[in-house]
């Protein structure tokens, strides 16, 4: 026990490797797949195989989003630096390379996180090695995910799914999709369950792919389910509708995934800061950490303010991951990390474009791309406003009925 916020020593090789991958694999193809939206970066297959190899050897400590809530052995009751932190740190590096590519990483989908968080041991075994996308949002339901309209009806040993899901990251490329559906809309959030649906299941079709502001290397799909029959054993967690337990089960996924999305914003923003620092330095502007900001050039002072906000987001993200690793309640801290990183991701990437002028705005550098990529990170897995609601309710001790 002793306060220390430096990156854990045992994860430094992982961070170093991820950084090398980001630098030498992702960055060189980053612009290419931004321009060629919807074309699959086949380079990622090789990379995914490499990451799987590292996972099997135990060297990676969970390099992708699939880490979730893996059981970690404890060392003499001391603090743990586990898979949540390892994932956050490696995702930061990968997103320093390219956010869209990280989101397209085979077998590292957000659905994998959900499986890791709520699946029973049998399911965890059965779904090991799948690539699972996550389907929650619907045309009429965004942040109020308790109101989803996709239905699941039990029929013998199967559930029959009906409904439309939008904004499904990797919805086309993934081989499985974790779908949220309600067993009985009248029973509210307690009746919402998640189902693992294998690609090719009759009744499930990919309707279209979105054209987007950023993360264009990542496919964002609309899926339609029409009398789609799923084995009952593919329902994650308990099939009982426990109105007392409510949304807890499904929502715990967010406690693990929000710090990871925060990590994406932190990584993307650091790419902008690193390049901008370099470009400013070439222009003769160096950042002095000892001199008062207002005594330095306006560019340096602006940079210092952006970097300070970035550092705050970075540490909040590590804190949320650390709490998850140590089984401390982290719901509020996950939201703090997500809210701060989301807004900082935008402020930093947009600020760096401004600092670098037309060099930042033009496509010759990647700064303009990062300013487009970062925006989604303040939206998916819970918008800025949803995070503030969660934080405010916790701090003020108010229910969702009191603080709407």
């Amino acid at each position, binding site marked *: 026990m002793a306060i220390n916020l430096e990156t854990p020593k045992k994860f430094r090789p992982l961070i170093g490797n991820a950084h090398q991958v980001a630098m030498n694999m992702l960055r060189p193809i980053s612009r290419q797949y931004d321009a060629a939206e919807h074309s699959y970066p086949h380079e990622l297959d090789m990379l995914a195989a490499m990451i799987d190899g590292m996972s099997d050897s135990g060297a990676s400590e969970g390099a992708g989003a699939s880490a979730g809530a893996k059981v970690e052995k404890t060392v003499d009751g001391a603090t743990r630096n586990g898979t949540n932190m390892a994932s956050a740190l490696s995702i930061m590096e990968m997103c320093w390379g390219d956010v869209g590519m990280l989101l397209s990483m085979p077998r590292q989908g957000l659905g994998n996180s959900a499986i890791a968080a709520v699946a029973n041991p049998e399911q965890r075994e059965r779904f090991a090695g799948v690539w699972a996308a996550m389907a929650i949002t619907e045309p009429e339901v965004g942040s109020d995910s308790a109101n989803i309209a996709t239905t699941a009806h039990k029929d013998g040993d199967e559930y029959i799914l009906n409904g439309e899901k939008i904004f499904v990251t990797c919805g086309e490329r993934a081989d499985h999709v974790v779908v949220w559906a309600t067993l009985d809309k009248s029973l509210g959030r307690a009746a919402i369950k998640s189902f693992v649906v294998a690609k090719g299941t009759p009744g499930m079709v990919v309707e279209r792919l979105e054209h987007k502001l950023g993360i264009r290397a990542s496919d964002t799909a609309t899926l339609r389910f029409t009398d789609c029959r799923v084995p009952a054993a593919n329902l994650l967690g308990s099939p009982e509708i426990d109105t007392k337990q409510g949304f807890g089960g499904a929502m715990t996924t967010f406690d693990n995934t929000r710090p990871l999305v925060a990590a994406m914003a932190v990584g993307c923003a650091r790419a902008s800061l690193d390049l901008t620092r370099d470009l400013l330095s070439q222009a003769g502007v160096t950042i002095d950490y000892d001199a008062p900001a207002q005594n330095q050039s306006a560019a340096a002072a602006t940079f210092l303010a952006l970097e300070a906000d970035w550092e705050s987001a970075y540490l909040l993200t590590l804190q949320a991951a650390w709490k998850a690793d140590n089984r401390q309640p982290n719901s509020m801290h996950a939201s703090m990390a997500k809210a701060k990183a989301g807004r900082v991701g935008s402020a930093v990437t947009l600020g760096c474009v401004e600092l670098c002028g037309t060099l930042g705005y033009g496509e010759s550098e990647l700064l303009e791309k990062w300013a487009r990529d970062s925006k989604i990170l303040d939206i998916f897995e819970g918008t800025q406003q949803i995070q503030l609601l969660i934080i405010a309710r916790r701090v*003020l001790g108010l229910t969702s009925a009191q603080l709407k």
Partner: protein
Amino acid sequence: MGSTKTTTQGATMRGNTDRFGVPASDKSDLTGFAVGALRQLSNVQLLDRWGVRESVEKLVARATSTGFSTAMTAQRTVRSFTRGGTNATGQRSALAQSRGVFDLTPTEDEQMLVEVATQFADEVLRPDAAARNETCDTSEEAIAGAHEIGLHLLGVPESLGGVSDERASVASVLVLEALARGDMGQAIAVMSSGAVATALSLWGTQEQQQTYLSTLTADDPATASLALSEAAVLFDPALPATQARTTSEGYVLNGAKALVPRGLDADFFVVGALLDGQARLFVVEASAEGLSVEAEPAMGVRAAGTARLRLDGVEVGEHSLLGSAEDYRECVRLARLAWCALAVGTSQAVLEYVTEYVKTRVAFGEPVAHRQSVAFMVADMALELEGMRLMTYSAAAKVAQGKDASREIALARKLCADKAMRIGLDGVQLLGGHGFVKEHPVERWYRDLRAVAVMEGGVMI
């Protein structure tokens, strides 16, 4: 021991102060002069008619709130020092060892210390905060209480009469945070000597430790203050206007330091001055010829008893030079980090206070906390404060391990300066008109939190 010296208190006109903040380009015309004459006349009549001239003048002497220029002298006893020891390197605290693990759990010792400091802040500092804001000082009881706990000796190794066997930077930020949650001004006052004790422990020679540090670790400890700020626009502590010149006997110092905590009470100071183009630290005894202090109250942290320190040809011996030029730079950083810790503590006080307030204040039939526009301001406070806290701890842990924390400290200072002021500002806003009146403490916290971006020195970890 002890010699008597003269302390001058009161307002002195300088810079733009005799123009009441009117820019130099803005000239009075004939009407203006006539209005000014009328004002002076009415002052005389009103004060005499109400019979309050005497009390007004006393007030002015302590706090420069109006355009009066008054000086008064006070006799007080200043400690003298017995030199001893050699010029050899002094004793140092061991560096904290890192296990290379990310951890946000304080040690058991730190947790106990925070508990004690929190209780002290709740029971002694917080109840007296409003009164001390008016009197511009901190009670003997508060200072004695902090000394009894040993808060001023956190940075002093056990072998020198202190309380830590290793570098206690993390403990120091935790304590400053806990104290400032009670009251920032008094927190500075009770930790002022501690800043100097830490500096002497980190950089002092045997002689400096034996001569000066021993007076701070004594049962009836001396008072000391770390004077780095100066009253100048765009002040950079790396280039103080205060000058040190080498003489055959030692050094001669000329200049003035601004907003020095407990300046009127200090037995000695550690002063920043430029020597051969480099900023350095000097130990200066309060009894030195040519040294004078006067009260210099500010917008906030008034309980810290801030004062202007003047050095007019003050001669000090060779033994007065403390540490190297790099040590001076480190001193500036460690002071900034201490201000971050203070910002975290006072911001926490704001958050707790407004949380309670918005949940009980009813408008339009329900608590105002039920409105997103209010609730989101509280959420913003909470998350920005958490970031401030983490950045402060992160830097302190690096300092404790002897690592270069200049980047982390600069970023923590920037974030704390911006977000703490925002928290102070929103704290007043959330109480509406009630936030603006002194019935509630938020207006004081607003004034205190402005200090974070501005102050150099005074406290240190």
